[in-house]
């Protein structure tokens, strides 16, 4: 390493300018990308809306976790503290839905009231 450290205030204006330029470039690139994403979403929604109006087919909806299965999981595997089975089953179903992870792939060890 051929580096010798010493206080070099003369570098400050140039470094600050470069930092400003760098942040501007990053911001610009990501703003461009944001605009592209918005454009692509708009385009896709227009195209799919057209398709849907032409062929009115029922959209497949992700199946909600079966209450029986949830209840069974609550009964067998999860430690419940101050939470009834029904609430626990709802929490587990919401977590599965929010995370897009099938319930059978999630493992709950305990649920307690905060």
């Amino acid at each position, binding site marked *: *390493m051929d*580096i*010798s*450290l*010493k*206080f*070099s*205030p003369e*570098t*400050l204006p*140039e*470094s*600050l300018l*470069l*930092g*400003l330029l*760098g*942040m501007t*470039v*990053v*911001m*610009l*690139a*990501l*703003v*461009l*990308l*944001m605009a*592209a*994403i*918005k454009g*692509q*979403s708009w385009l*896709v929604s227009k195209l*799919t809306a057209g398709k849907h109006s032409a062929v009115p087919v029922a959209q497949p909806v992700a199946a909600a976790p079966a209450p029986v299965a949830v209840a069974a999981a609550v009964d067998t595997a999860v430690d419940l503290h101050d939470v009834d089975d029904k609430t626990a089953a709802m929490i587990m179903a919401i977590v599965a839905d*929010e*995370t897009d992870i099938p319930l059978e792939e999630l493992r709950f060890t305990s649920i307690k009231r*905060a």
Partner: protein
Amino acid sequence: MGEMFIKLQELLADSGFSQLFADGGWKNLVMIVVACVLLYLAIKKQYEPLLLLPIAFGMLLVNLPFTGVMKEAVGDQNGGLLYYLYLGVKKGIYPSLIFLGIGAMTDFGPLLARPSSLLLGAAAQLGIYCAFTLARLIGFDVQSAASIGIIGGADGPTAILLTSILKPELLPAIAIAAYSYMALIPIIQPPLMRMMTSKKERAVVMQQSRQVSKTEKIIFPIVCSILVILLLPSTAPLIGMLMLGNLFRESGVVERLSETAQNNLINIVTIFLGITVGATAAADNFLRIETLAIIALGLIAFAFSTIGGLLFGKLMCWITKGKINPLIGSAGVSAVPMAARVSQKEGQRANPTNYLLMHAMGPNVAGVIGSAVAAGFLLAMFG
């Protein structure tokens, strides 16, 4: 008997033990202790063990005297094993392959659902330029300062790629600082998050994002590659590989390639990358005052990146009249998914009904793109 004694003496003189107690041998001893501490942190404390463990072991191997594991190939003489494996770092191959795997593992859905997350990912690159300015101020040259600054991107492969091109001598210190701070995000970020936001802001519950269609997810990696690489061609190895991996995942037609990229390939490359980066930490190269300066500047870079994301989060909260929780801004520092988890935890601390994880994943993956763009900019300037 005398001859045997001489042979024994020669054997001892040729052993690594003799070197450890010879002039300068103490440096190797110190590095062996450092390597053992890092091994302890990786195994016992589980600080980024996937990378810290091979890095620490590489460091251990290279500091055992006379091993020649990093010996350069000269003429007909073969080099050491790690010298050859290190070529993948030197030529920028491993970080790009890791990005391929990361792309195959990443769901850009939360980002596509809320494109404004990209702005948070951009704002959270502030630390890169703050650390760059400070590094220049204390006397580092521009290449070193750029390599140090990129620690603030909280993205290991990006930091390794940039440093291996701009200042390879700093690679071990920068890689170790970057991965250590990434592991310490749950300790570094929360105090800053509490300092920069009010309890009311932290308690903001965000509305559920819209569903993103499969078509949008397939188009995104193609559009992103074209746009970003056209703007900054030097980002091609990172953004190109990241988006290729993501296209593998989202297209649904190359399941085997996607599986390989996100499992076997990334694991193999991680082993090679970790052990060879660690092996660059030879005592003479590592035990210097500059290493301490790099580690301190790395922490500053992380802190300022977090602050940048939070400040922009506050701005978005104000503009949207309280619809955005500013805590998701700190997730813009890459470090997927650790930073998003920290946002979730802090949000829930302020309001137990808060569920910020999916909202924070948007800025989190935007941070990966942001840090790659920042690295591309620094490469274009100083490469």
